[in-house]
């Protein structure tokens, strides 16, 4: 059983997944932020691998990627930083990123190196199911990494079932069709989340996009297993000299 599956076995309500861009705000802040997230009882960590042309991200996360790239972050550096990560971080860790940098690193080598440093799963928003099934899914499975597909309110029921069947770990329910960081009215998405709940999916569901505080986290968690916070946390880290303190302070406003 993977670390992510174990987590959901132990806890299936109000699971908090926090996104942070690797190498942001400083090149070497990646692991300290992860440690602080674990200490503040985040249940999962989603590490963004910065990319120059991120299509699904809003301006805040894109800006954090630009800074991380300026800081010198690369996939190779990230794996070096994560080498000792498991000595101090026990929660599941997911890498989120776009295909192009991974293809240049080498897809097989990327999965091998990710698994070797203790990464548990991948979110690659621009890898659709056709390419997953035909080329990349078997490599991901070979290294026992979970792969998390996204669904949106526009995704048909049939397709949700299909993406759920292909996913392992959890299913990422985007709260509305949008880039990250758009404010959402969580009550407006409850019907969609209820629809997911009634489908009795194989995977737990975490809600992302537009979750920023305790109220939106709890509203999103009502009809799902938990939620993912990204933009609001990136904003909280902006200009922070003590990333651990900023992290702990932010998570206290959510949990």
């Amino acid at each position, binding site marked *: 059983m993977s670390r992510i599956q174990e987590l959901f076995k132990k806890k299936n309500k109000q699971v908090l997944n926090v996104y942070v861009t690797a190498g942001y705000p400083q090149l070497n802040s990646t692991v300290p932020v992860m440690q602080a997230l674990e200490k503040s009882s985040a249940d999962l960590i989603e590490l963004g691998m910065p990319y120059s042309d991120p299509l699904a991200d809003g301006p805040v996360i894109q800006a954090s990627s630009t800074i991380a790239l300026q800081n010198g972050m690369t996939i190779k550096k990230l794996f070096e930083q994560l080498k000792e990560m498991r000595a101090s971080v026990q929660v599941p860790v997911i890498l989120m990123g776009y295909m*192009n940098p991974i293809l240049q690193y080498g897809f097989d080598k990327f999965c091998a190196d990710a698994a070797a440093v203790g990464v548990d799963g991948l979110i690659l928003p621009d890898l659709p199911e056709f390419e997953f099934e035909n080329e990349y899914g078997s490599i991901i499975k070979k290294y026992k990494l979970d792969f998390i597909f996204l669904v949106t309110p526009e995704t048909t029921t049939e397709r949700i079932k299909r993406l759920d069947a292909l996913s392992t770990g959890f299913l990422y329910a985007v709260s509305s069709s949008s880039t990250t960081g758009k404010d959402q009215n969580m009550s407006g998405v409850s019907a969609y989340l209820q629809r997911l709940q009634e489908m009795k999916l194989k995977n737990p569901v975490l809600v992302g996009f537009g979750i920023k505080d305790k109220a939106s986290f709890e509203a999103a968690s009502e009809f799902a297993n938990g939620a993912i916070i990204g933009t609001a946390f990136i904003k909280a880290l902006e200009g922070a000299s003590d990333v651990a303190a900023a992290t702990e302070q932010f998570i206290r406003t959510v949990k």
Partner: protein
Amino acid sequence: MSTTIYQQPDAQGYYGQFGGAYIPEMLHRNVEELRNQYRSIITSKDFRDEYQSLLRDYVGRPTPLYPAARLSAQFNTNIYLKREDLCHTGSHKLNNALGQILLAQRLGKKRIIAETGAGQHGVATATVCALKGIECIVYMGEKDIQRQAPNVARMKMLGATVIPATSGSKTLKDATNEAIRDWINNPNDTHYIIGSVVGPHPYPDMVATFQSVISEEIRKQLKEKTGSELPTHVFACVGGGSNAAGAFYHFTEEQTVKLVAVEAAGHGVESGLSAATTRLGKPGVLHGSKSLVMQTEDGQVVEPHSISAGLDYPGIGPMHANLFASGRGTFLSATDEEAVRAAFNLTQLEGIIPALESSHALAGLHQVDFKKDDVVVLCLSGRGDKDMATYMQAMGV
């Protein structure tokens, strides 16, 4: 015309190893809707009738195939210019924008977004939106807004909203990112009119199909002028590659026809300020498809450079990547300086001021040894009015 690996992609949008649809789930419904419907819509009688009549009466097609006597004499061969610069709005871009607005209408879309580099695609899109009374938003790199002021003014006059893209190199690549994000945020009522043969499947195929009117006409016109439908060479500039796709389309399976694509070398291929994708790029994923992409060792997309805003793009369409990788196409490059020189050469020999994009194709003529009886067709994709500031600078005016 038979379906082949060069001309059309497979069911998943692949031209050989290039193409596909690498898109976030948020775009899936839109892209799937297009993929399921575009073929049946654009082949329907109703669509074809309206498209053909507007191509004739509004765009001004067929555009002439002009035998350029003095240019031919200079190269001691036979050069024909396919005059896409004479299309309404001044470039081939209207062929595609018109096709897509008719498609968007039939899909019930109420809002159009587009990206533009030199502004020609933006002007074409703003024009067809005015024609059909549909809201138009054009994303344009901040740098391109500055260097293409006449086209920005035209778009605004046509009623479009021009939104500057301020990230990255502030050019076409970034305008494309912003347009895609707009589409993600407005999935229901919006159609994205992509201006080149790039983007997720079915865009490269759809845009190439709309532009294929260029090579269809070339074949007919050449037959009338020379007795043969087939030239020995077809030249076109390539940024994303829409005019080249249109000029090559009906020749891709004619192995006797050399397909010559000319990319922008900027200050020189190895100068660090270039947009010569086939020389500098590697297979990668950009803007929704797998193609050749200029990028760092770590897979970050590099900021390209060309004096021509329309060629200032770090990738090429998957159809072109396949032509390059298979050896079916010949890919040359021309520097900023060579392009400007070629523009002045054409202007003074033939009285035609070409767009800077087309000037790259013209500069490519200097790199090929022609025989006296060769028949060379060059796609003159646009007119140079928009580039007068650059030409004036070259003249020291």
